[in-house]
């Protein structure tokens, strides 16, 4: 019966090609637009480190003075040097890393390569293990290097190719801001999206090319990028006194053994705040936050609002396209009331008529879905041509491919259901009489 209905459907669709094309195109456009924008949204709101995101936490404290204090406000988004160091040294978590970003001049040994600037991250030793950064060669530095302000660096695969032709460059020297650094490790391709551990340098920016110990960067006052918020007497602009400044400019991350340890760590932060208040360093009431990766990304509203707006728009667009198709399909089915009446009179049950019509609707939906998928690929290709820094990420993954398929089938069935239900209510006697 199925093949017979399929044949009937194809015949009926062929009878009015323009109309069929219109229905297919409408569904395809709706699905294409929807899938393009939803894929972008999906990519941008993805989990940058799925295996650990529930165990990685971003502590926040409120070290500001009482000027402009309002109850219930969020604490600053970053930490001061003093607090960062105190929390780091306290070692209350399984792993912890204190960091900030910058850009360093890289001076290649080869005479024919001009010096250039690379984005850099100044961090403490746990960074690599904590964020599961994959190493191609070697490994990160250790705590002793942090303490001794060692001139060591981890570079990315890309920079390694540029400087050392992709060879195992462990032990080689790279000159950063006129200082020789020993390469201890080369990272394999690694680009957590969003760039969650420091959103100040761009939400979807590529990962840095050079990593050096935080202590070393301060020792050499390597150039810093990112945001600095000061209060009170402040501390000026990126000078040599950032360690004592009343400014927040450090990011601090901790890895706990499990998400269940978060309350204990939060209690530690509260105790720390109270202690600092008794010491007179903090003035405001205790105000701490401890968010895991996804909560932090939510809080920072990382996904661009334009992208969310576009997704809603595309959903609206799909609804209009579906309504359009439902209307056309309904008219088409009712037009055939006579034919359906004959079938009913000859013994076909309502159920059979319903099946037949649903198959016809399904064919339209499937064709629309397939074209929609093609349009989605085209749309994503167009997005990738855009200059936004997240553009290159806009690709259809397996999950979204499945979602597209489900959406296509779902919307076509939805579009066919109402017309088919309505048309199989045809009273055979009435139809036959009016012939």
């Amino acid at each position: 019966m199925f093949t017979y209905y399929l044949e009937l459907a194809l015949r009926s669709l062929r009878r009015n090609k323009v109309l069929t094309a219109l229905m297919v195109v409408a569904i395809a456009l709706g699905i294409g637009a929807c899938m393009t924008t939803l894929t972008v949204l999906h990519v941008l709101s993805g989990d940058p480190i799925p295996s650990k995101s529930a165990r990685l936490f971003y502590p926040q404290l409120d070290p500001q003075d009482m000027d402009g204090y309002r109850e219930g406000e969020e604490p600053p988004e970053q930490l001061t040097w003093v607090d960062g160091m105190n929390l780091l040294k306290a070692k209350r978590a399984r792993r912890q890393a204190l960091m900030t970003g910058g850009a360093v001049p890289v001076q290649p040994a080869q005479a024919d390569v001009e010096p250039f600037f690379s984005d850099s991250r100044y961090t403490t030793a746990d960074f690599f293990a904590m964020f599961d950064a994959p190493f191609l060669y070697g490994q990160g530095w250790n705590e002793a290097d942090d303490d001794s302000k060692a001139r060591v660096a981890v570079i990315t695969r890309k920079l390694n190719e540029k400087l050392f032709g992709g060879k195992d460059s462990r032990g080689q020297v790279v000159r950063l801001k006129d200082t020789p650094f020993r390469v201890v490790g080369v990272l394999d391709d690694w680009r957590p999206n969003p760039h969650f551990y420091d959103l100040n340098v761009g939400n979807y920016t590529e990962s840095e090319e050079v990593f050096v110990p935080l202590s070393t960067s301060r020792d050499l006052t390597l150039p810093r990028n990112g945001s600095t918020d000061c209060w009170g007497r402040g501390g000026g602009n990126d000078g040599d006194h950032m360690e004592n400044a009343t400014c927040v400019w450090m990011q601090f991350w901790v890895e706990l053994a499990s998400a269940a340890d978060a309350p204990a760590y939060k209690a530690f932060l509260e105790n720390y705040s109270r202690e600092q208040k008794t010491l007179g360093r903090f003035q405001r009431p205790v105000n701490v936050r401890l968010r895991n990766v996804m909560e932090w990304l939510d809080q920072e509203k990382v996904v661009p609002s334009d992208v969310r707006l576009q997704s809603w728009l595309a959903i609206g667009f799909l609804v209009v396209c579906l309504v359009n198709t439902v209307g056309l399909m309904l008219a088409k089915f009712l037009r055939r009331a006579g034919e359906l009446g004959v079938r009913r009179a000859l013994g076909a049950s309502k159920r059979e008529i319903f099946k037949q019509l649903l198959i016809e609707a399904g064919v339209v939906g499937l064709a629309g879905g397939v074209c929609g998928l093609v349009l989605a690929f085209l749309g994503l290709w167009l997005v990738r041509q855009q200059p936004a820094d997240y553009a290159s990420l806009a690709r259809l993954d397996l999950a979204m491919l499945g979602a597209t398929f489900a959406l296509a089938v779902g919307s076509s069935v939805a579009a066919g259901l109402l017309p088919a239900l309505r048309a199989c209510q045809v009273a055979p006697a009435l139809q036959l009489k009016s012939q």
Partner: protein
Amino acid sequence: MLQIKPILAALKRHKAGTLLIAMQIALTLAIVCNALFIIQQRVDRISRPTGMDENNVLAIQNRWVSVDGKDTAPLIKADVQALRQTSGVQDAFATNSFPLRGGGWSTGVNLAPKNEGKSAAQTTLYFVDEHALATYGAQLIAGRNFTADEVITADPKDIKSTPQVIITKALADKLYPKGDALGKQLYLGGKDIPPSTIIGIVARLQVPWNGTWSDNFNDNAMLLPVQLTSNYTIYLIRAKPGQLADVVKSAPATLLKTSRMRVISGERAVRTYDQVRGDAYKNDRGMAILMGVICVILLAITAAGIVGLTSFWVGQRRKQIGVRRALGATKRDILSYFLTENLMIGVAGVVIGVGLAIGMNLWMVSQFEMARLSVLYVVVGVVALLLLGQAAVLAPAMRAAKVPPVEATRSV
């Protein structure tokens, strides 16, 4: 219009179809109104003037290598000298930022020393020399330019204020609404920071940012006569008319000839103002284009839907049309029947659509940084959709009008 009753009776027999078309018109109206409004907002944003002679200006971003930020003063001086002597260059100067660059300094300004709390106005700071106005092509509407001996050399972290400043008219009006800002003083900080005297007012100069956060001080800029020593220097160069393309090539070469202790690389290193503007507004332009495309497609689909559905109805009613024609109805009557029918569905659709459009806008105001929809867009949308409906129905209606009276006598 006399046909309203029979039309209503006919529509009652096609409840589902009528409802679907009305719904489609309503949704299309709601989306198109809001999309048009978004387009208008973005276009407004994109077309804000910077106050500069954009056709001839070029920006070069330069980072110093192998030299400490503190020691760059003589290098910058040499660079600026060399640039001004390059052929095709009208003028040039070194600065910390420029309109639409994306990053820069902002600070609060007050009429009295004040450390904390809300300031009288927010402004951006451009550190420039006496060649800045000529390079921007900015129009000085009151007072005078800086003189060469007023320009000091200083480290960014030591600068708190300068004795003289030039401000934009927008900032002057904000601080001194009576229009008597020239010669008056302003404060960039607390008691320990000396005041600055406003020596000149320029017609307009935009801030470096284009996000919504800087919208309320978009034209508040202050020029300070300071040559900054820093490991990051920006050169703004104005080419003589028609020579921009040559200067784009010759200026970086001139700089590299002056000193090689620098990096001028990356896609944002050398940009004409066209590119600066394009980079700054790429998201807004993309959004406006996308909205436009969606509007056009939506309207096209809705029109096609109306054509399709009406064609069906015409086909279904051929016999009835024939009967009416045989009973004396003119072609005109038939045509107007279908036009009126569509108008009635359209009106029902737009009534619901206006509600939807306003609801959608209110929701967007609460979710996104959006303004309230102006009535104009709703009116334009309503008129557009009703006209679109009439245009779409015209072809099937004319086909209906052509049905001959003899159709009444044919069975099936």
